[in-house]
């Protein structure tokens, strides 16, 4: 029997064989152990690293977890963890602000899908709408949803403002947020109006013609407005020309309203919405339903040292 040398020619070969044998032996016991462990682990997926990296807290039904569920979620943390018990009553808020925001999301979604089928050019715009109506699967539904959601959004904004006015919610400390809301009303109407021209049909064409004809008469800046001609305004350099990109509603007007409709105004409106929602929280959450104030208490401070002194 030759001596076993760890580094010998034969010794090396024997070493490899032995190691393989050893590994096979180990695999027979260790892998099943791992499999068992893995299966045990999968029985409770909430303990996996993937899960805990996404969800930062447990889901037991405890007050703490209910709060964390809202606060640790980027989409839900627009809300506070808790609100006034009567504020969830539909009769107070009518849910109109939320519905308006939801419709904006629906409009963004359907709008992006519509953009896949639409070219903002005089040659193709109308044909694209026909194509959408007759050939694109669910194209008609898509266009209808976009149209009606836009109308609903206008109504939603009006009813929201109506509610906010009737509940006096614009009063201190929410004055500024009311102003942001008024701007959002303007941008909602402009979004709807710029979209009106895009099918490039008679309805949109004449509506936009009527609408932008008023811009001719802008004081100082329109060629038919008071003091416009005196300031050198003509149909080719006044504010209407700037809006339409020309002196008539044509290819440039179509492109301009497309860009305002799909990019410009949505960005501005989104920024204002962020401010609007942020201010709702920063100004103390939604305004009520608040305890009623009596005439005698009206001019007295309700909190702070002065109130305590009285």
């Amino acid at each position, binding site marked *: 029997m030759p001596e076993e040398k760890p580094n010998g020619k034969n010794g090396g070969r024997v070493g490899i064989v032995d190691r393989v044998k050893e590994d096979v032996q180990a695999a027979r016991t260790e892998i099943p152990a791992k499999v068992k462990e893995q299966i045990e682990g999968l029985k409770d997926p909430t303990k996996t690293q993937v899960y805990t990296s996404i969800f930062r807290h447990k889901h037991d039904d405890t007050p703490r977890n*209910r*709060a964390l*569920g809202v606060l640790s979620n980027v989409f*839900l943390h627009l*809300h506070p*963890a808790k*609100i*006034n018990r009567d504020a969830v*009553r539909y009769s107070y808020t*009518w*849910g109109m602000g939320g*519905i308006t925001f*939801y419709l904006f999301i*629906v409009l963004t979604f359907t709008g992006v899908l519509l953009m896949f089928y639409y070219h903002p050019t005089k040659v193709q715009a109308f044909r694209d*709408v026909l194509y959408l*109506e007759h050939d694109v699967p669910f194209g008609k*539904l898509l*266009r*209808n949803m*976009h149209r*009606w*959601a836009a109308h*609903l959004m*206008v*109504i939603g904004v*009006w*009813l929201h403002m*109506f*509610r906010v*006015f009737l*509940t*006096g*919610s*614009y*009063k201190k400390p929410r004055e500024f947020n*009311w*102003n942001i809301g*008024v701007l959002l009303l303007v941008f909602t109407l402009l979004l*709807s109006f710029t979209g009106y021209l895009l099918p490039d*049909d*008679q*309805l*949109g*064409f*004449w*509506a936009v*013609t*009527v609408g932008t004809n*008023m811009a001719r008469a*802008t*004081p100082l800046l329109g060629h038919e*407005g008071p003091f416009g001609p005196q300031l050198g305004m003509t149909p080719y350099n006044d504010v209407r020309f700037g809006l339409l990109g020309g002196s*008539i*509603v044509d290819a440039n007007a179509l492109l301009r309203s497309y860009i305002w409709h799909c990019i410009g105004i949505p960005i501005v409106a989104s920024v204002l919405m962020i401010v609007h929602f942020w201010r709702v929280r920063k100004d103390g959450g939604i305004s*009520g*339903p608040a*305890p009623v*104030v*009596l*005439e005698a208490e009206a001019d007295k401070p309700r909190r702070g040292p002065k109130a305590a002194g009285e």
Partner: protein
Amino acid sequence: MDWRQLWEIMSAPDNVPIVGLIPLLAFYIYLAWKQAHANDVLIEQLEGDAALAKTHHRKTWPFQAGWQKEVHVWPFLLRIEFLAAIIVTIILMVWSITLNAPLEEPANPNLTMNPAKAPWYFLGLQEMLVYFDPWIAGVVMPTLIIIGLMVIPYIDTNPMGSGYYTWKQRRFAISTFLFGFIILWVTMIIIGTFIRGPGWQWFWPGQTWDHNRLIYEVNRDLPDIFGITSNLGKGIFGAIIVGGYFALGGFAVFSLFRHYMPKDFARMSLLQFAITQAFLLIMLALPLKMLLRLLWHIKYVWITPWFNI
């Protein structure tokens, strides 16, 4: 009665939102009024009973000691939001399946639509074109509406009625807003949509929209009625009338506040009061001018070489 004509206008796809808006508005006005009334009853009760006012939780909804004043957003608010989203989606889906978005012939600059109407939410402004020159109806008035809405929180100094529905504590604010929103804005939209036909002529509901109808109507200017013919005279006359309206009207608003809202008046600064006066009078000028036109066929009150009002 031309029912077909009526149905045609009511069922035009883009008019459906207005037809829907009317019952929606009625419902929400009812809902608001119901809560305002309940709160007003409570306020009256508390004002007559000082002891109760100290202990009462000050809401019309039930509350007992030991109940939590706040509830968790998850699930109590989020489930409502989720439900609302589903309901809105269903309504939108059903509406979109049953009613097609309008699509007319391709745009044709040589073929004018008659009547050529703006989108329905702007028809109030278009209706205003009848009574005012475009620079007022199309530019100045919309700007003033926006500014007017924005100044509301800064001129309404009434500290009551913040965060709850009430009528008795905010009679003036609420009636002004209802006047502006319902009477002026919504009614003008309804007139613009359902009443105005070809040539922007007045057709009562059910009257056939006759494209050949001619109305012999002579509009006069106010200075003409008084026999003023010279341009200078017309300019001065109009300035006196318009200036007089604002001066007298301003005094009337002052008198109104002093007698009926002395506390609000005391709370307001001069600037706040002046802005309130100005916007109230401009808002009232619209229906006044409408009446002048519809009842006495008066076109302009103030005529100058540069602008007419």
